[in-house]
């Protein structure tokens, strides 16, 4: 793997720092000497992640407890993240919740919850940070969507719909920043295939990738991509094919 050096002391905000993917990415950034502002719901787990990042070499680590679905609570945390090092170079939004499709699909309240966690809260954060990046004129914003968002399918469409929303939103932001910042602010849509994490534990899924195997790709994507990045890369091909399967055939597929 080629080394993509984060500028020493690069200031990165991570929301959902206790997620399996975020933890692995944070380790790499820590090793590269980044300054990390970590946000998660659980105070004890957040502290574990923060301590780990410090020992692994992060130049500085700050943290704040936040349930990102509580809209009002987002504001002071984001303010603090911007204040502590006088701005931010990058933001990674990594929180999420994969429910059991059968459990949620006929329950309006649960559907709303899924969308709240996976889409609404993400877009709220994005809305709050967009103006700051636009003024700053440089940096990157990344969020983790999913291959499940590429095309609606029966086994996962509630989660997939929420992720599709995020992908669309990111695409719009990318288009906006291309004009207003000349592309100096990059917007990265990280689209994982199934990854072996506690979130997918117990679910029957083919081709589960190791989280430590995809972390380098995500670090690389945040360092230089401006667009959609599938991890592992093979999912680009798989989803492109699946996206173009004619509807008549698709409807007969058990997928």
């Amino acid at each position, binding site marked *: 793997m080629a080394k993509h050096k984060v500028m020493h002391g690069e200031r990165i905000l991570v929301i959902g720092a206790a997620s399996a993917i975020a933890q692995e990415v944070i380790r790499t950034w820590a090793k590269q000497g980044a300054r990390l502002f970590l946000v998660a719901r659980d105070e004890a787990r957040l502290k574990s992640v923060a301590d780990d990042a410090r020992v692994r070499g992060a130049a500085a680590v700050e943290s704040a407890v936040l349930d990102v679905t509580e809209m009002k609570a987002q504001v002071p945390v984001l303010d603090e993240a911007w204040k502590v090092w006088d701005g931010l170079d990058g933001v990674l939004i990594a929180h999420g919740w994969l429910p059991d499709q059968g459990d949620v699909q006929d329950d309006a309240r649960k559907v709303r919850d899924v969308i709240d*966690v996976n889409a609404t809260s993400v877009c709220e954060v994005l809305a709050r940070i967009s103006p700051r990046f636009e003024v700053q004129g440089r940096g990157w914003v990344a969020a983790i969507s999913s291959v499940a968002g590429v095309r609606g399918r029966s086994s996962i469409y509630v989660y997939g719909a929420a992720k599709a929303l995020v992908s669309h939103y990111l695409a719009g932001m990318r288009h906006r920043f291309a004009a207003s910042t000349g592309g100096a602010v990059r917007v990265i849509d990280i689209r994982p295939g199934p990854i072996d994490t*506690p979130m997918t534990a117990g679910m029957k899924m083919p081709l589960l990738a190791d989280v430590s195997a995809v972390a380098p790709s995500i670090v690389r994507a945040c360092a230089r991509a401006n667009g959609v990045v599938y991890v592992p890369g093979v999912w680009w091909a798989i989803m492109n094919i699946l996206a173009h399967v004619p509807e008549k055939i698709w409807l007969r597929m058990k997928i």
Partner: protein
Amino acid sequence: MAREGLRIRAMSKSYESWGGYPRRVQKAVRLDWKDARLPVLDNGETFLPYGSGRSYGDQCLNTGGVLLDMRGLKRFVKFDTETGILVAEAGVTLAEILDITVPKGWLLPVIPGTRLITLGGAIANDVHGKNHHAKHAWGGSFGHHVRKIWLRRSDGEDMVCSPDKKPEWFAATVAGMGLTGVIVQAEIQLMPITSGSVAVRTIKQRNLEHFFDLCAEFDESHDYTVAWFDDTCMDDKVGRGIFMAGRLMNGDERGALPLRAPGGVKFAVPFSPPVAVINPLTIGGFNSAYRLLPRREHSVVPLGKFFNPLDGIGNWRGLYGPNGFVQFQCVLPKDEAASVIPALLKDAREDGHRSFLNVLKMFGERPSAGMLSFPRPGITLTLDFPFMGERTVRLLHKLEDRVIAADGALYPAKDACMRAKSFKHAYPLWQEFADFVDPAMSSDLWRRVSGLNGSSE
């Protein structure tokens, strides 16, 4: 929102031991956070923590029960660069520790043959390296440099034990094969270093007698000593091979290398060949070729390469083919070694078993920290055999009998066949230890050698 509970995973990931023998399907659950609950099992099912799976035999397996995959518990808690005291979760590997501590001038006092094992595994086996015999504070085995262990029992009890606080729990957990409870995190003391290199003397070892002489000669000046020997030589040439003595260099010595993270595995054996590349026909050739290679007497070797040369070759066990291999590691009292070692080699040779990796090390007098610790005064010998079925098991029993008759012991971390009576003879504190075993925990090896928790397979 739903907090992830512990779910039993069907075996998409296979949990094996390092030698590939025995190979039995395992069920596993992951422990991802140190505050997470331990699995609640029913029907008298037991669980066993699983780290890197570097135990060779069945010590890291729990067939019919559940493995607790500890590798998610890989967070560092604290590292004091002034005192060299490190606190980390049990799933952190020694390689990860060294990558962080070496650049800051701190080294693990005890480094076993592979640094790809977890901190918990190192404690549970009280692993040893090449410097057990060193008479200063930094010798001995891994348990000697553990300051605190955070242990969690299946009934929810959490405790912190150390040589001073709850010392009986500490003594049971060090070399406790993971059975006294889940080691959640540990505090260890590291050793200060000023360079990233070892000055190595490589000497052609004439025979076993010469090994003892060389050990005595280098005992004071060189902390790290090990010998590799050729099993093609018999009679008065038995033990002919290479003796290596290593000494950590000072930063201001000429030729010393800078402090640098030793790094990870460099390249992997990309596949497991269908036929064992290392088999009785090829072993003789490797051995002789090695012996006749010219060797420089003095060299400077980077830390990573000196301590763990095989870690640089990922998955080297693939070279043994699909049947896997077994290791036989024993310790013998010094006055028995001269006669027993040649007898062991003769037994193996006569039975058509050739050993590729034969290693000799000297253990010092320092009393071990664990009730079931393997290191004790004497010579430790390691043999490696491609597994050839029932006849290999019979040979191992024969070797085992010789070792026990000479008041020696076998190393559980390497073992797949040792019989209960041998274990009990070599580890007289086993019964006292059994009182500390968590009622919800067990392993294939423990059931086999203790005769407890139902019959062995």
